[in-house]
């Protein structure tokens, strides 16, 4: 079943932001890992995954309606 999520890619990952990031189509039940392959963003670059503001991992599933945040490591000061 096709459904939609919101995606926010942070820092140097923002260049991979897809055009429909606020209304991005997915198949219900897909994982964050599959989502990253679809965008595409290398999972190697990803350090943190948030779904609805809670830390999750690459194998977490999405049902639609979620807000997904993706972070690379950042360490500057």
């Amino acid at each position: 079943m096709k459904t939609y999520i919101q995606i926010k890619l942070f820092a140097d990952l923002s260049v991979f932001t897809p055009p429909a990031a606020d209304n991005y189509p997915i198949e219900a039940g897909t994982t964050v890992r599959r989502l990253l392959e679809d965008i595409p963003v290398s999972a190697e670059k990803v350090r943190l995954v948030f779904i609805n503001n809670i830390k999750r991992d690459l194998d977490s599933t999405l049902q639609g309606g979620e807000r997904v945040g993706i972070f690379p490591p950042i360490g500057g000061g």
Partner: protein
Amino acid sequence: MENKLVNEIRSYTTPKQFPDNTPYSSLPVEQVALLAGKYNVSGRHIEIEALQAGIVPERYARNLRTFSLQDQAVLLQSRVSVVGLGGLGGGVTEILARIGVGNLNLMDGDTFEDSNLNRQFLSTHMRLATPKAEAAAARVQSVNASVDVEAHIEFLDANNAAGLLAGSDVVVDCLDSLEFRFVLEAASKTAGIPLVSAAIAGVAGHVTTIFPEDPGLKLIYGERDRIPAKGAEASLGTLPPCVSILSALETSEVVKVLLKRGSLLRNRLLVVDLVDNTFEVLKLQ
């Protein structure tokens, strides 16, 4: 001496009013310095005596009544270590000195270079090629001479960390290396000291507060043995609005830890991305 000192402090006060017309007894900056010299103590000790006698050191008048006089005395009695004196550390040092944290322990083995000038408030043309720790100590002295300041021109590592952090009430991570953030966290945990940690890349950043018993940085970066040498800042640089915001957020957490008040970012991450004005608090566990 105590009573004599309080009486003398009282003799130098003048009646004033807060902007909402509430009256108070004010002690000017100049008299704090004079009494500190006369009694051969730090200005903060004069200010603490004044606060305990219900007198407002005028330099902190605008901190008060968000802070009580007792709160201000607690800050003046506190020791905070700032590790790294670049973009984050320069902002953190400035704010902690002005708000009246009484004992600042500052460390950085680095010297200023041209590329620091875009964002590091302690860097100036005159200070290029001179130690950051020296500039930080001089800055504290010039904005709040009541503060006791210790400056260490050395980098923190696993061997010297315990000694450098000893006696701190809070440690502030203002480093620019993922590896040394973990070294600092380990040392802070061993010493039983809360750590406030921020990092930025480009116009994005995050800040968290880690108590010794909290999982801490591994919730953000993964296990220590898997971290890269540098993060996204290697390709994005470090922009001044973002570094200034994150340094201010770090000091806000420091003050809340010291005053045991407010909601802390323990096991949570406040993330900022100025590209679309994102400010969100994320749950790390």
